[in-house]
């Protein structure tokens, strides 16, 4: 086992190793440089189906986006849209077929930034709070594991684990020696968050991290995530199917559909006036909380399609209310539709040939 020290020197004081100066000493490119840039990310899974022709699941099929320093980027979409695969690709838990990851300006997986060094700065919280904790380890040992394998001496690693437990609202005296099955779902998810923070990451991926929790517990954990973000200067990528939660926590939102980005932009804009018809349908599908103004019709019929054989042209065109002949033949690029707001819809792009498209003059 190699002994690599953490980028911050471990300190015996409880609060010390957790506190961070407003400017992260690990920051390289300054605030304007995205923390993580993803371009051309592709992952296809081969599927064997009897004797038929070889098929591939186009789980992630050319995804580009950036995560800015200090922001929360929400990723939303139906099942099969590729959001969870994207998370695993970003963490290197599955290997990408192609595409580039740049972390603070450095290519991930190269000599300048090997996976190991990258992962110390990027951590993940999983959806299933029970499956993501080792059932045979105390929560304290689970949290201390990361620092230990990164060269923090045992005692200090345990001290850090206890400090983090306290920070996520679990009194170390009562909780440190417990096993995962002795905790409630909300408590376990707090432990998972503490574990993710134990390596002092700069970016945390939250993959449906609050989806399995009861509403009142969900709100507690969301508040905790906000506090931790401010305290440690974190950047979040927040994957969820719940648009209300995403709207609450995210600065920007990315909407995915069948392995591609449909729309990305400030969450106030995307979740109020979405440019992409799919984002609009998704937003419309959220249950109303007004008994006098219930949803009258579902904008999308049927289930999300299978990413094995996506439709030609715009992948959304068979379900789209704005569909025009041009949509089945031309793949829409992800183009600007407003300030910091991009959408992959021909109906929004001047000169695309779509009847609803704004005229070229108006755009110019």
């Amino acid at each position, binding site marked *: *086992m*190699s002994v*690599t020290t953490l980028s911050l020197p471990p300190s015996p004081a409880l609060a010390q190793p957790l506190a961070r100066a407003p400017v992260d000493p690990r920051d390289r490119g300054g605030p304007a440089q995205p923390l993580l840039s993803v371009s051309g990310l592709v992952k296809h899974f081969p599927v064997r189906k009897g004797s038929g022709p070889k098929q591939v699941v186009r789980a992630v099929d050319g995804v580009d986006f950036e995560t800015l320093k200090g922001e929360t980027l929400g990723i939303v979409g139906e099942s099969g849209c590729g959001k969870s695969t994207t998370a695993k690709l970003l*963490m290197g*838990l599955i290997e990408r077929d192609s595409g580039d990851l740049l972390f603070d300006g450095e290519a991930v997986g190269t000599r300048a930034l090997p996976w*190991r060094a990258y*992962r*110390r700065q990027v*951590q*993940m919280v*999983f959806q*299933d709070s029970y*499956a*993501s*904790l*080792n*059932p*045979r*380890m*105390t929560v304290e040992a*689970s949290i201390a*594991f*990361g620092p230990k*394998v*990164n060269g923090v001496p045992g005692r200090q690693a345990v001290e850090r684990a206890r400090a983090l437990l*306290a*920070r*996520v*609202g*679990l*009194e170390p005296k*009562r909780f440190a*020696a*417990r*096993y*995962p*099955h*002795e905790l*409630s779902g*909300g*408590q376990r998810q707090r432990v*998972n968050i503490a*574990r993710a923070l*134990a*390596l002092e990451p700069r970016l945390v991926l939250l993959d449906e991290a609050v989806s399995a929790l009861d509403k009142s517990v969900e709100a*507690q954990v969301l*508040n*905790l995530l906000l*506090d931790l973000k401010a305290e440690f200067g974190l950047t979040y990528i927040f994957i969820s199917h719940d648009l209300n939660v995403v709207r609450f926590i995210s600065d920007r939102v990315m909407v995915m559909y069948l392995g591609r980005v449909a729309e990305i932009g400030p969450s106030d804009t995307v979740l109020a006036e979405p440019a992409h018809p799919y984002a609009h349908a998704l937003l419309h599908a959220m249950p109303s*909380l*007004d008994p006098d103004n219930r949803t009258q019709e579902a904008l999308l019929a049927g289930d999300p399609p299978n990413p094995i054989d996506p439709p030609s042209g715009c992948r959304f065109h068979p379900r789209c209310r704005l569909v025009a002949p041009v949509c089945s033949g031309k793949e829409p690029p992800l183009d600007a539709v407003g300030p910091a707001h991009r959408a992959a819809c021909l109906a929004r792009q001047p000169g695309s040939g779509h009847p609803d498209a704004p005229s070229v003059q108006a755009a110019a």
Partner: protein
Amino acid sequence: MTAPVTAASVALDGAVPTAAPVAEAEVFVPSRGFWGHVGHRLMRDPVAMAAGAVILAIVLVAIFAPWITPMDPYKGSMLRRLKPVGDATYWLGSDELGRDMISRLMVGARLSLFMGVTPVLIAFAIGSSIGILAGYVGGWTNTILMRTIDVFFAFPSVLLAIALSGALGAGIFNAIVSLTCVFVPQIARVAESVTTGIRRRDYIDAAKLSGASAFTIMRVQVLGNVVGPIFVYSTSLISVSMILASGLSFLGLGVRPPEPEWGLMLNTLRTAIYVNPMVAALPGLAIFIVSISFNLFSDGLRTAMEIRQ
């Protein structure tokens, strides 16, 4: 619906501290840990406890045999051959050379237990390592290791043990080597299957994300979760090992006379089976009792480990 966030919360925040720590009301039972729970449940299983007591008694007898045997197990008497069970001098009778059966059984327990436990222990260490490695790494490593292991399954274990022992030559050491070779594939296969079952769990992914090496993950994260089932399976092999070892001795491939060992005793006494069947059956009975005790104990252990969480 609108919900207030700041000003309105003043009225509430006095009574509702929203910040951590969260006092989650519950009564906490101090943690026993996994093995604590297993031990607790095992204690309440009368069959497993009885089997455990039998094993413990026999182990104690084996350890202290040289000091507690009523007679010299090696000293025979041509005049007092094949005394029946219940004889005034020889409580469990005497063998074909007039040696005291009870003393020979007590001393024989040492070698018999040794031959039962040692190959399983060695095979447990080797087999788990191979199985965990194959299961965790997966892919080609798994294919190569497990297909090689499968070759051994082509032969019945008795045949394999005899063939290996025969090839290596007689003797205790060679018998242990050949028995170990018989058990390694079986344990490796179990270890591989339980490891494959957990390698895709999120907590293994989380450990990978912490930058731990594959070896560290196997040692710290995987081992604790798979060692239980492998151990249970291995304890069930102890009885098989004892029987196989007895078989080897019976065929003259294991322990050699005049060393007392249950299998060997069974072999030499078979000539007396028509003269004094009770005495001739005693070593077999001893093997039976010990092996069924190990089996019952490992059954109990398996049940105790099935804790729903």
